[in-house]
Structures are given as C-alpha cells and as structure tokens.
C-alpha cells in the first residue's frame, strides 16, 4: 500500500511549546464541566435556592398586605401557625402516610407481577401502568368523584356488605381523599420497585431454593431485601408530593378536613397572609427533608438522581 500525501495532518511546529501546550489544554479540560453546569446551575440557584431563602425570610416577617411587611424575626408566626393549623399538619401526614402505605401494598405486587411474570410483555405492561397518567391529573381526580358518588356502584356495594352505614358516604370523607391520593401516585410507587426487581438475577432465587427455602422464604430472604432500594425510592416519590397535595382534598374531601396544602394555598392566594403561609410552607419543606435526608444518606444521592 502506498503512502499518499493527502493522509494525516501534520503536527504543529515545535514552537507550540510542550509545557504551554500541556498546561493550557489541561486547564481548558478542567473548566469544561463547570461551563456545562453553568446555565442550568444558575437557573436552579435563581429559582430554587434564592426563593427558598426568601421563603424563610418571609416567614419571619410581620404585617399585612395593606400595611406592608417588615422583617422582624417574627418567630411567633411559626407558633401561631402551629396552634391554628397543627391538626392540618397531622392530618396531611396521616393521609399521605396511609396513601403511601396503600400504594405500596397495591404497587409492590403489581411490580412483582410484571417483573417476574411479564415475560415478553414487560415493556407493554409498563406502558399500560403509565398510560392512565396521560389523562390530566384533575380529570382523573374528578373521575373518582363519579366513581365514589353516593348513588354509585362502589358505595352501593360497600353499603350492602356493611362497611358503610346505610346512608353513609365515601365522598367528603377522609377515605375518599386517601383513595384519590393512592390512585394518583400509584405509578410513582410501582415503577421504582419494578426497576429494582427487574435487576434481580433469577439465579439468586434458584440458589435460595437450592438451599432449602420454599418460595415464601425465598421471597422474604432474597427478593424483598434486594428490592429495598426500589421500595425506598417509591415511598419517597409518593410521600413527598402526597403530603403537599391539596387537589384530592379539595375535590374529594370536605372543608372540615383540609390538608396543609389547602391551607397554604388559601393563605397565599385568597386570604393574603404571606408570613403565615410562608411559615407553614417552610415547615412542611423542612419536615419532608428531615424524613428524606436520612434515606438519601443511606442509599446515596448518586443512586437517586441517577
């Protein structure tokens, strides 16, 4: 084979300087990641970090919409918010927690079924799980209003079994709210669990059976622990939005049983009481973080964001 002239490029003359060349390209390489981060990072700082700090600030202000607000380290905002709305906090955690638990009980077997019995149709089944969430959130929730209506089939059956009293309702009770929340976040619970179950090497379960476990024990000792990461992720992805939700409460619950989200919403947008609203908001945020951060520490942020 002949070597022709139109081949490779010629190296630049030695004048390029070996030390200078090495140094400048190295420093350029170091700068690249930061440059890539910059636009998105700025956005996050401007619209997440600063507002959060600001929120904390507003929560410590005093005043009213007419007279204006003044930053006075008004810690009493927090205390008065708690006395007035402590029960809403508790209710929110109760509802969200129950819903999360229900979602886990419903979603885990579903994920398990798809992962271990899905076979060729796994991807299709996953798509089926996701599909309902292509209808607008509000429409889905309103649909539950129809399903759980007093004259509806569901209430009728429950009444005849005796779970509900003769003229009892489901709508405008806490149960309807919990049912709504459970439904709306079911996919968030199911998918992470599926992902972690899918990763499990089937030969591990076979090994367990080879070592004298029956299927139940194999599940308890092998499958369940290995899906822990998925359970944690799913729980977080459900609990966090659920605790701040107010749509389900508004549409399916009654005004005596509002969640903290409803309160924050009304305090911000209707009764314009920014300091209280901010205090409630910030407290909710901190409460969630206090639950989330130990989980994250245990699993590692790389895993959650990746």
């Amino acid at each position, binding site marked *: 084979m002949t070597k022709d002239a139109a081949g490779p490029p*010629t190296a630049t003359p030695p004048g390029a*300087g070996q030390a200078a060349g090495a140094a400048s390209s190295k420093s350029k390489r170091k700068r690249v990641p930061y440059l890539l981060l910059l636009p998105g990072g700025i956005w996050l700082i401007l619209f997440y970090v600063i507002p959060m700090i600001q929120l904390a600030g507003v929560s410590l202000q005093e005043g009213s919409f007419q007279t204006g607000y003044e930053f006075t380290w008004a810690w009493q905002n927090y205390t008065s918010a708690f006395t007035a709305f402590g029960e809403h906090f508790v209710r929110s955690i109760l509802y969200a927690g129950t819903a999360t638990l229900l979602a886990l009980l419903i979603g885990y077997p579903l994920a398990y079924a798809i992962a271990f019995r899905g076979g060729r149709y796994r991807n299709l089944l996953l798509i089926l799980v996701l599909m309902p969430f292509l209808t607008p959130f509000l429409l889905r929730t309103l649909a539950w209003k129809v399903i759980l209506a007093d004259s509806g089939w569901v209430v009728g059956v429950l009444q005849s079994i005796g779970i509900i009293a003769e003229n009892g309702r489901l709508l405008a009770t806490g149960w309807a709210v919990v049912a709504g929340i459970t439904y709306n976040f079911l996919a968030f619970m199911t998918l992470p669990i599926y992902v972690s179950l899918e990763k499990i090497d089937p030969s591990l379960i076979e090994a367990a059976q080879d070592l004298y476990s029956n299927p139940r024990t194999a599940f308890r000792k092998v499958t369940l622990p290995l899906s822990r990461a998925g359970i944690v992720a799913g729980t977080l992805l459900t609990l966090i939005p659920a605790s701040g939700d107010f749509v389900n409460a508004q549409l399916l619950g009654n005004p005596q049983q509002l969640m903290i989200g409803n309160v924050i919403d009304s305090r911000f947008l209707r009764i314009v009481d920014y300091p209280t609203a901010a205090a409630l908001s910030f407290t909710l945020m901190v409460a969630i973080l206090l639950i989330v951060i130990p989980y994250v520490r245990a699993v590692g942020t790389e895993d959650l964001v990746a």
Partner: protein
Amino acid sequence: MPEVRDRDAAGGSEEPLAVALSGVTKRFGDVVAVDNITLEIGENRFYALLGPSGCGKTTTLRMIGGFEDPDSGSIRLHGEDVTGLKPYQRPVNTVFQSYALFPHLDIFENVAFGLRRKKVPGAEVTQRVGEMLDLVQLVGMDKRKPGQLSGGQRQRVALARALINHPRVLLLDEPLGALDLKLRKEMQIELKRIQNEVGITFVHVTHDQEEAMTMADTIAVMNEGRIERLGGPTEIYEDPRSAFVAGFLGASNLMKGDRKGTAVTLRDSSTIALPEGLAFGPDGPIQLGVRPEKMSLVATEAAPVGANSILASVVDVSFIGVSTHYLLRTSWGTEVVVVVQNLDDERHAAGSSVAATWLPQHTFVVS
C-alpha cells in the same frame, strides 16, 4: 537500572524516530502511573508494551495518542513535538480495546470517518474504503451496523478504520483481549502480516507475554510505571535480568547463592558454574535463575560432568501430553519446576530423589 534505549532504532540513521518519549511522567492523584519513562521507537517496527495491569502501559499508549497529557516530559513523533496536542492534531491512530465502533453509523461510514473529517472527496473515499475492507477481509459488510458483526469482525473494522488514514504510527490498546483463543492466535498472525505489508510502526499494548513474544520485534516490559527490560523476544526471555521479568515472561526457577568468580555456592553447598559473560562485578550474594525447560532430571548418581546440578526430591508429577511437569523440592526448601518433553517413557515418581541438571550457558543472573 537497565539501559532503556532501543538499540536497533538508534543505529546511526538520519531519520528521526517514529516515537520518542523523554522523561515522561504521569500521576493520577497520589499514584504515579508512569514514572519518568524515556523510550525510542524506530520506523517499521512491531513494538510491544508488556506488563501486568496497573504497570502503566496503557497510560503510556494513551499519552502517545493524546488522550492523556504527561505531567512532565515530552513526546515527539517523527521529530516533531506533539506534547499537549489534541488527538485530532496528531498523525497517529488508535485501535481501542473495546473497538469503539460508532453504533449509529454503518461499517462504511465507520471506516470512512477519518477521511470524511479530512474532507477527502467522495469518490476517493469509496475507493479507499473498498481497498481497506479488502485488506481486512470484510468485503460486502459495508452496509451493516457494528451491532450485527461478531467480535472478530468488529476488531477488523476497528483496524481498518485506523489504518485507512495512513497514520505514521498505529497504536493498539489490547485489541485482541476480547477474542477467543483460536481467533486471537489467528489475529496475531494477521496483525503481524499487516504490519509488514503496511510498513509503519505498530505500538501494541498487551498483558499476554505469549502474544508479545509472537508478534513483536521489540518488547518493553513495564512494571509499576517503569520499563524494566527492553529488547527482542529471545533476548529478554533468555536474559531477563530481573526477578520480575523472569517471572513475568514464562516461568523461572530462582536460587540464591554466594558468588566467587564464576562459581556460585548454593545453600546446600553445591556449586553452580556461571557463563563467562555474567561473571562481572564484585563477588558476593547473587540470585541466579534457570528456565524449567532447560533442565533435565537424572538419577542422583548419574549427574553429568560439566553440567550444573542440584539435588532435590520429586513432590508432584503432572503429565500434560506434550510434556511432563515436575515439581521438586531442594534440600533447602525451594520449589523448582522442571518441564521435560515426553521423548521417552522414563518418568520419575513422586517421592524419589533426583538430580536436576542444566548447561551452564542456560543460567541467567537476576538482580
């Protein structure tokens, strides 16, 4: 420290060396991956960088290719300083260990990639790609995607993609590692043939000493960031000069003793004769070695005169078909391996006492 100049290349020619590394060091954090290496590679040579994982051979190769920058030292290609230049500015091409074929392009476009970047006109591209696929025996595959090819085929595409650009040096990063044994042996011969035909310098990184010895004209054995031994395959095999090289290239039996002139006294008081050339320097403690295939076993009384011999007892016997491997233990406790070709049916049983003998010129000294 053994001399690390590649003697063959510096044989008085005016032409600059294909590759010249001078005092190159590379650190990753606290680890010194490459430690002050000076290396000279001439034209039209098949050059192997051989060593265990972590010895720095891949890092050295990547620095020649421009994928890492040395912390100090310089790299010259055909006399021109390329230190600090990006890979696309260097007249070398690389065959990667994972082949790194572009999955979204078909074989034709993969091979043509470098030509396209150099704005070679379409007709010429088609012609050269055709020639190249012919050279690596992949005619008719140009419309396929890498995912459809077998490992061996992908390897050849990677080779074609690099060679088509007429690089002045070809860098190969353990390209045969992923192939099965039979295919690997075939490709070793293929690569050697192509290197001869194309006539450029190949720098080949491998951890497989058999591979290096089969293919390379010159081998640089690296350990912990430094070049321990440099030379042709036969030379470094028969004269490893360091315990590491002796152990890395084939097996060896090492024995400690005290030297006086050309005679070495071992721990059981038996005397070993050294070849003339190795008896330099002051008398004193020394470590010598001999390759298992250079030794033969005889009954203790029948030790031939003029040969070196040590007494040992047979611990284990393994019949391998082509040869029989004996594991012996000397009177001072060292284990010695002897490989005997199965020319006759004579076999020494485990537990028997034998004399292991070898010719003095097969002794080497290890520092």
